[in-house]
């Protein structure tokens, strides 16, 4: 499997993915033949858990995978699991998650809200009052579902509520839930809210069991969500195949971002063997036009999910550093300069640049000054993580 492809023959690759909208670049690269054009014969394997994707990538059963960016970093640092150095040469998506809450919690937050419902500081402060009122009444803490301990969802929820004064470990319960179970758990009252990627927020709204409170882009302007992951030794042994894979993904990302292609893209992603959901729901995600409440209210945002546009596909080590800083903030990892540099080294803009031949963005053209754009706290500086974290009163460090 690791031989370089001979001229004229295709190199077989096995790539794992989770059925989520942000697997789009991978699925389109394969379905539209972009990977084949690069000499790669990709077999896609749909998985049911991030643990499976991680383990199969680590064991070499997958050559590459659609993976949560924080899992790639955790794996490279050996956090909670075997240490396997991972390389991320392509970012599959920026943002794309949303926080969805039950109608009951929505009503409670709205009743306590003092400000704009789209302002995450205002909603987090309202949540603090809701939490305090529940404590006074002796009610069980609210339960928030997220997808994985090492996930952007976990960190986005924590960052948001902590900014309003809610301690995510003391005042509420955060639990891991597989995305396909989120909607059912919200409907049955096992959770009061969740943070998950597309299409699950829309599914909850369509069924009338949830309100989308925030797009995560309200919390962070640029959050590295999923990445294309390969093992570092594999990357070193197969530079041509990797470059081809990056190019195929980049072409797919451009194809997806062209609005004229969206109907076709949504239909391809909706196929049973891919996401297996209604193409219309996927279309809304790609367009960033989401129904946010069961009464039909729609919210539109150009920042909901970015696949390729505005430099989204190019891995930005600052975003990796921010994710590592969250692991430190919440007690998942100790802070060290070495770990920080390992985390940042997972994201490889150099591989992206050399494969695509695109010029690196010039410093003046970046969209948000610190590369992350969080709604609260000082701007992020990877050279001063310790000082940065000290500025947040709620932390486990």
């Amino acid at each position, binding site marked *: 499997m690791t031989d370089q492809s001979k001229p004229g023959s295709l190199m077989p690759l096995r790539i794992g993915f989770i059925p989520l909208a942000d697997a789009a670049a991978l699925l389109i690269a394969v379905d539209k033949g972009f990977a084949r054009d690069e000499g790669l014969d990709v077999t896609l394997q749909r998985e049911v858990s991030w643990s499976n994707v991680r383990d199969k990538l680590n064991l070499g059963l997958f050559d590459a995978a659609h993976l949560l960016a924080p899992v790639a970093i955790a794996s490279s640092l050996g956090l909670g699991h075997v240490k396997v150095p991972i390389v991320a040469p392509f970012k599959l998506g920026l943002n794309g998650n949303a926080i969805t809450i039950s109608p009951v919690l929505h009503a409670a937050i709205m009743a306590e809200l003092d400000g704009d419902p789209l302002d995450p500081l205002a909603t987090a402060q309202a949540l603090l009052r809701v939490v305090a009122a529940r404590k006074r009444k002796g009610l069980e803490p609210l339960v928030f579902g997220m997808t994985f301990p090492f996930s952007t969802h976990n960190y986005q929820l924590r960052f948001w509520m902590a900014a309003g004064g809610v301690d995510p470990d003391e005042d509420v319960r955060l639990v891991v839930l597989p995305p396909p179970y989120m909607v059912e*758990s919200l409907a049955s009252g096992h959770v009061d809210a969740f943070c998950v990627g597309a299409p699950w927020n829309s599914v909850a709204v369509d069924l009338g069991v949830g309100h989308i409170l925030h797009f995560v882009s309200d919390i962070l302007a640029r959050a590295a969500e999923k990445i294309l992951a390969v093992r570092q030794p594999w990357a070193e042994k197969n530079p041509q195949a990797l470059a081809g894979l990056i190019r195929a993904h980049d072409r797919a990302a451009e194809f997806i971002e062209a609005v004229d292609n969206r109907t076709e893209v949504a239909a391809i992603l909706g196929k049973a063997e891919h996401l297996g959901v209604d193409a219309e729901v996927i279309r809304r995600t790609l367009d960033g036009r989401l129904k946010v409440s069961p009464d039909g209210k729609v919210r539109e945002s150009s920042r909901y999910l970015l696949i390729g546009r505005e430099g989204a596909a190019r891995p930005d080590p600052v975003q990796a550093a921010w994710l590592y800083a969250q692991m430190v903030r919440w007690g998942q990892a100790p802070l060290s300069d070495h770990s920080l540099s390992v985390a940042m080294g997972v994201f490889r803009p150099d591989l992206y640049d050399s494969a695509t031949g695109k010029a690196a963005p010039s410093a003046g053209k970046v969209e948000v000054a610190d590369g992350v754009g969080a709604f609260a706290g000082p701007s992020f500086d990877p050279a001063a993580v310790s000082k940065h974290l000290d500025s947040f009163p709620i932390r486990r460090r």
Partner: protein
Amino acid sequence: MAAESSPKIAIVDENPIRAAILEEGLREAGFTLVERVGEMNNLLARIYQIDPDVILIDLENPSRDVLEQMFQVSRAVRRPIAMFVDQSDTASIQASVDAGVSAYIVDGFRKERIKSIIDLCISRFNAFAKLQDELERTKNALEERKVIDRAKGILMKLKGLSEDDAYVLMRSTAMREKKKIADIAQSIITASELLK
């Protein structure tokens, strides 16, 4: 096993037959404290209640990610759990992934003890897969028999053939077109329905 107390083992599997096969195997091998969890709601609460030394979960189960939460050091987790990963023994990990099962152990659990449990899991999971394969094949064969019989009837009626000749005709067509007899039979049924 006699010298040491039996470890408590939790099997997390939504497939009750496979879970039962595994449980039986574990009991036969002397592991007497086995609990099955088939309900994925409140999985963590259930696991904490059982307080197992070893957790076995099938890889088709999305709730595997829920178990990953137990690696986290937090107030909710009483005994930190680790996945069974021995960097020196990738063959055994690969075999368990191939068989479709994964094991988590409480920190400090002896490696030699988990090895025998894992090996047992692998063989039982593989046995179950084989059983299911055979069942599937038998079902398919029965299904094919029915289709072939119907097509034979159609040929006998339309072409006035004997039963044996109708079968010979289908078989020779299948050989010529490099297809299965069942596929030819299905085409005959489809065609006759279209032409009705």
